[in-house]
């Protein structure tokens, strides 16, 4: 009964959220912090165990039927290579971010509410990842989105509220597109289970339904992933949130709700067509270039990072959109790497904000001598995001560029190289203005950020340096099994339905 593990990815954060809200009024701070940390640690350990389970199962997914109702009658949860890959990414970042937040969030009031909302966000993301049911995916997507709307406005200052309002409106419109798409699919196939739906769709000819639903899903999940024509909310929402939340939003939320859901539905339910794949590639390349150009002119550190999130999401979508083994490998590997270094960069900006009380690049300079750990980790992350060897970002970008050339899309390869160079320029600016140069007079008395914050940053920096080792043959199964799930396409349905009885 290995599959009994699967529902706990949702149960643990939910129970943690409810319990924190229950005891939050009278329990000591330390108990709440400990409860929170222990639950994310458990989740991380479980997700590592899930990787070994899926590896042991040898390409077969594990299926858990909630309430004992076999699919398609009840809701099933599916754990395969892609799901366990995403679970590790999400829960790793969540663990690091919550350790960082223990001190950082002391600046805000209402810390139990923060812990509750954070746990609900993690529960929503884990739910999206493990679910095998389309409507269930929508419900968990709404949980994660709703908690992120509230977390963006957590400081309750004017700008934060405004950004949150904009984000909430755009997010709800996106959700309504997704809902209408699900309604069309239900009317057409009369089932909601993704495996069963893939089975029905492959046997039922359709000319207009699938393209129409694809456009609805491109708009809906594209808004959630902040691909370029739909990106307007992100540069407001991500900088306005507390730094640890920005790290979660940019690091994993847009990827889980946007890229993962998009990939799962297009590859495994629809069985991707060349048209859909070219739309994905075009959106990816467009986001990659437009966002990085916009980022160059930013002087607000967090805003600059937010634009880079859009740009890097472009790389991921470009890689996945190629739909070749090498392209998907690069896309998914970049997804993992971007989660790590972008959350590290946001945590750095949070540490600077905590110590110097500013986000403006012109206000900070020469922080290197006073904040060595932040400066070094930031250097590592900047080199990773710019794609300098031997950091992890280099390997994934290299694979994506190779995959573009291999499949005959030379133009996209050049675009990827240009985007990478512009990223490097933009981060050289960050290094120059934030860490090098003369220390400002008013910053003479600052000290390095507290220990819990630096620990989280150092862990992420180590992963940035060592990330390239994931490509070694003995570790490669972590990513290559996820790639295999997407390459299987429509066979997902027979694999999942076949695994139910076991």
């Amino acid at each position, binding site marked *: 009964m290995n599959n009994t593990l699967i529902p706990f990815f949702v149960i643990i954060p939910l129970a943690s959220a409810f319990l924190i809200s229950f005891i939050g009024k009278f329990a000591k701070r330390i108990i709440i912090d400990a409860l929170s940390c222990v639950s994310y640690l458990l989740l991380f350990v479980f997700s590592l165990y899930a990787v070994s389970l899926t590896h042991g199962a040898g390409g077969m997914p594990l299926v858990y039927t909630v309430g004992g109702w076999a699919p398609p009658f009840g809701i099933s949860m599916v754990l395969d290579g892609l799901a366990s890959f995403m679970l590790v990414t999400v829960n790793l970042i969540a663990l690091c971010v919550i350790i960082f937040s223990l001190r950082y969030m002391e600046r805000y009031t209402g810390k139990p509410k923060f812990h509750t909302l954070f746990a609900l966000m993690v529960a929503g993301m884990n739910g999206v990842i493990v679910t095998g049911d389309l*409507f269930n995916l929508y*419900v968990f997507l*709404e949980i994660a989105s*709703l908690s992120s*709307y*509230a977390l963006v*406005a957590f400081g*309750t200052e*004017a*700008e934060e*509220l*405004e*950004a*949150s*309002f*904009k984000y*909430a*409106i755009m997010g*709800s*419109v996106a*959700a*309504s597109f997704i*809902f*209408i798409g699900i*309604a069309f699919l*239900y*009317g057409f196939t009369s089932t*909601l289970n993704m495996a069963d739906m893939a089975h029905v769709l492959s046997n039922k000819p359709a000319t207009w339904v699938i393209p129409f639903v694809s456009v609805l899903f491109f708009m809906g999940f594209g808004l959630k992933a902040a691909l370029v024509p739909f990106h*307007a909310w992100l*540069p*407001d929402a991500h900088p*306005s949130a507390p730094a640890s939340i920005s790290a979660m939003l940019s690091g994993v939320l847009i990827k889980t709700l946007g890229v993962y859901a998009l990939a799962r539905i297009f590859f495994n339910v629809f069985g991707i067509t060349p048209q859909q794949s070219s739309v994905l590639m075009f959106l990816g390349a467009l986001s990659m270039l437009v966002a990085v150009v916009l980022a160059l002119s930013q002087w607000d550190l967090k805003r600059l990072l937010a634009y880079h999130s859009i740009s890097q999401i472009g790389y991921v979508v470009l890689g996945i959109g190629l739909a070749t083994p090498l392209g998907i490998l690069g896309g998914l590997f970049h997804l993992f790497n971007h989660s790590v270094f972008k959350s590290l960069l946001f945590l750095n900006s949070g540490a600077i904000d905590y110590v110097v009380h500013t986000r403006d690049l012109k206000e900070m300079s020469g922080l290197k001598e006073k904040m060595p750990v932040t400066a070094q980790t930031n250097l590592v992350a900047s080199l990773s995001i710019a794609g300098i060897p031997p950091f992890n970002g280099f390997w994934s970008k290299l694979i994506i560029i190779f995959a573009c050339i291999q499949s005959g899309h030379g133009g996209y390869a050049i675009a990827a190289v240009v985007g990478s160079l512009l990223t490097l320029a933009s981060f050289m600016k960050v290094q120059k203005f934030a860490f090098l140069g003369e220390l400002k007079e008013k910053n003479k008395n600052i000290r390095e950020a507290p220990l819990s914050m630096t620990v989280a940053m150092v862990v992420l920096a180590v992963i940035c340096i060592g990330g390239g080792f994931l490509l070694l043959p003995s570790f490669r199964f972590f990513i290559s099994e996820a790639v295999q799930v997407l390459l299987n396409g429509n066979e997902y349905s027979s694999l999942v339905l076949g695994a139910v009885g076991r």
Partner: protein
Amino acid sequence: MTLYLLCLLLFCIGLYGVLRKRNLVKMIVGLGIIEYSMNLFFVLLGYRVHGRAPLDARNQDILNMVDPLPQALVLTSIVIGLGVMALIIAIAIRIYEKYGTFDITKIKRLKG
């Protein structure tokens, strides 16, 4: 068919309200209309002619029922809509408190 199209027209009207109006309350109203239309659309998909409500009775005259699954899903969706709506209204009230207006052209502090 006409019913579906009318329903999607209602969806477009809501979308117009959200995207084109420059007032927070109007945007919330537009969002409400979007939610009505999407819920109605899903329930329309499950309707069956001469069907009856999905409740078992002791002595049944009409045997075919309408599809209960869309109704269950829309029940979920109504409650989700209520939650989203309430949160957005709360944020709008806080914005009104800070700026003293619901007019978005006077609020715009962020560049976008």
